[in-house]
């Protein structure tokens, strides 16, 4: 067909519009549409750029926290220093404090330097500064663990100090060390040579993921593990309280409650609660759970209770939305064959609403996992030096921190090594959140049914 055919075919006298030529209105409409598409693409591009920048920053700054510089050192555990009477008795050996192990490390460093023919003006006490302050404790723990080591020469993998570690990560330079009391350029000369000979090595540090927080002066041995356990126990409390309470409340409100002013009032308040700042829940928890009910401070149980209060509105709102989305015809069908109200809900409505309920719950949990502000008020932040909880009860009741609170705490500390750990903690937290969201998606797929 040629372009002219429709025009030719038009009856003479009456003007007909050709649809092959765009008229002015159509052109304007198409231009508006093209503009709108461009805005949409631009918006997505901007959002994606920010996301990429954010993730890239987190990865670049956080990944170094997962590696740590170690020094391989042969330490001779001299018997006359550690167990002068030769008793072999653990209590006797325990009398030697970490302070008593320092000379041994100094000695070991001197002999390592001699063996490697490295010359240095530094005396042994200054050499020790290359290593973490935790190094003597590592030796002492090993000896207490196995007293037969005394008298032998044992190879230890010791953490280097955070400054030395920072030097290998590019965080610390010779210039920045000029004013440092602890480490100076002579140390760096030694470290460079030891790195060349393979005695100093940077590698993956599992202790960052599993370990506990450390004091301000030894960031190299701080880990997020114990606060992870705190978060875990809090999430248990939140899950086992907010899911049943939230779902029961939503089912009652959605399926059973009469429509009157009182239920309207409750509904409005649930929506309002969802918008209440989380710190308000924190001060509420402080007043009720700690000051009135005398639950222990800083305990994951209290944190979990506070976060439950915070999560409930989210779960109730999303559960009610998914109950609403079940078509009424299913309810009618069940009632029509003589099912009771409760049978209708539990046999038909609830299974269909399940994907939505689970997604809402997991999103609520993820929110709670990342919440920091209420934890500040109930004391779940600060230095938790304790190691792993001894049991389940201790897990709920002993003072602990939570991952976001631990990150906040690290970010507050002065040492740049802690700053790096804060970024690393963010990565761990994000991995948790992403796996929870992934779980939500998987559950949704698994339970989704058509009707």
């Amino acid at each position, binding site marked *: 067909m040629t372009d002219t055919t429709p025009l030719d075919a038009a009856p003479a006298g009456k003007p007909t519009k050709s649809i092959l030529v765009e008229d002015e209105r159509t052109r304007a409409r198409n231009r508006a549409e093209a503009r709108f598409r461009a805005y949409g693409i631009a918006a997505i591009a901007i959002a994606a750029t920010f996301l990429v920048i954010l993730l890239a920053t987190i990865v670049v700054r956080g990944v170094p926290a997962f590696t740590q510089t170690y020094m391989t050192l042969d330490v001779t555990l001299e018997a006359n220093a550690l167990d002068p009477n030769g008793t072999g008795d653990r209590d006797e050996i325990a009398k030697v404090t970490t302070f008593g192990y320092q000379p041994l490390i100094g000695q070991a460093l001197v002999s390592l330097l001699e063996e490697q023919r490295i010359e240095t003006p530094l005396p042994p006490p200054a050499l020790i500064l290359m290593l973490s302050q935790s190094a003597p404790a590592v030796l002492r723990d090993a000896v207490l663990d196995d007293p037969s080591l005394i008298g032998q020469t044992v190879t230890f993998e010791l953490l280097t100090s955070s400054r030395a570690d920072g030097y290998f990560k590019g965080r610390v330079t010779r210039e920045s060390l000029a004013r440092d009391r602890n480490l100076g350029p002579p140390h760096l000369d030694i470290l460079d040579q030891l790195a060349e000979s393979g005695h100093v090595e940077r590698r993956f540090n599992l202790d960052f993921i599993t370990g506990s927080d450390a004091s301000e002066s030894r960031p190299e041995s701080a880990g997020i593990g114990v606060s992870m356990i705190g978060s875990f126990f809090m999430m248990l409390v939140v899950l086992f309280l907010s899911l049943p309470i939230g779902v029961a409340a939503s089912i009652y409100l959605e399926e059973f409650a*009469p*429509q009157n002013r009182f239920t309207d009032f409750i509904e409005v308040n649930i929506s309002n609660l969802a918008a209440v700042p989380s710190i308000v829940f924190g001060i509420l928890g402080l007043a009720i759970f700690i000051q009135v009910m005398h639950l222990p401070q800083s305990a994951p149980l209290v944190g979990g209770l506070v976060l439950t209060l915070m999560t409930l509105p989210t779960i109730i709102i999303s559960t009610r939305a998914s109950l609403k989305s079940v*078509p009424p*015809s*299913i*309810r*009618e*069908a*069940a*009632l*029509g*064959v*003589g*099912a*009771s109200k409760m*049978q209708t809900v539990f*046999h*038909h409505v609830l299974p*269909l609403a399940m994907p939505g309920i689970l997604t809402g719950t997991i999103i609520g949990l993820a929110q709670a996992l990342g919440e920091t502000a209420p934890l500040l008020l109930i004391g779940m932040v600060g230095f938790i030096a304790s190691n792993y909880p001894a049991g389940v009860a201790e897990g709920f009741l002993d003072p602990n921190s939570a991952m976001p609170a631990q990150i906040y705490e690290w970010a507050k500390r002065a040492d740049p090594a802690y700053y790096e750990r804060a970024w690393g903690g963010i990565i761990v937290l994000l991995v948790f959140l992403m796996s929870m969201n992934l779980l939500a998606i998987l559950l949704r797929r698994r339970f989704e*049914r*058509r*009707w």
Partner: protein
Amino acid sequence: MDDLRLIERAVDMNETKISANGVQVYYGDNHAIKDVNVEIADKTVTAFIGPSGCGKSTFLRCLNRMNDTISVARVEGDIRIDGEDIYDKRVDPVQLRAKVGMVFQKPNPFPKSIYDNVAYGPKIHGLARNKAELDEIVERALRRAALWNEAKDRLQEPGTGLSGGQQQRLCIARAVATEPEVLLMDEPCSALDPIATAQVEELIDELRQSYSVVIVTHSMQQAARVSQMTAFFHLGNLVEYDETGTIFTNPSDPRTESYISGRIG
């Protein structure tokens, strides 16, 4: 309307199954049903016809108290099934609905297997003592709903995977599986094509052997084809209630005449 063979249709008046006296229904301030009196016979198909919004579905839903689920609905008057007042305080609507089954306008199978759809009612009412009995009930219900031959090899497949007509017959099977005495059908064919409609209508005629069937329909032809008694509703009033043949050939009320000849509606 010669093809409807209305004259041949014998109406033997069975005993009354449902009797309604002075029924009023209000939706909030809206007076939806105004003083309806009707006697519905056993083993008979009774059709409710009338224009949209005339209250025929509302009245149907009074008969198994489905209106209870609508909080603003209020029912007054006296509805008796086998002489028992269904709005008596002692009546549990759940028990009533087991006795008065219902099929809805839109096929609404549960998102479960065909077998589970049919077996659900008998299960919750404890009609089967074991799996074999349940199997038997399911087969009987599906046979009655003329779905057995099509469904017997796919009982474990989802009921929502059937065609529209099959789904509606599945819903009928689900309703008859609980052994009701009355079957209410709210425009059961409005979502179906002519072939499926014909199948369902044939089915309704067979169900008359065992049940009192009450059907709401928009299609006057359908009312004429399947029912023995017809009630014409208009603006919440029961205008005329008589044998189907009489309603369609010799109505006594001018409004009925106008409606069946297409002048109002």
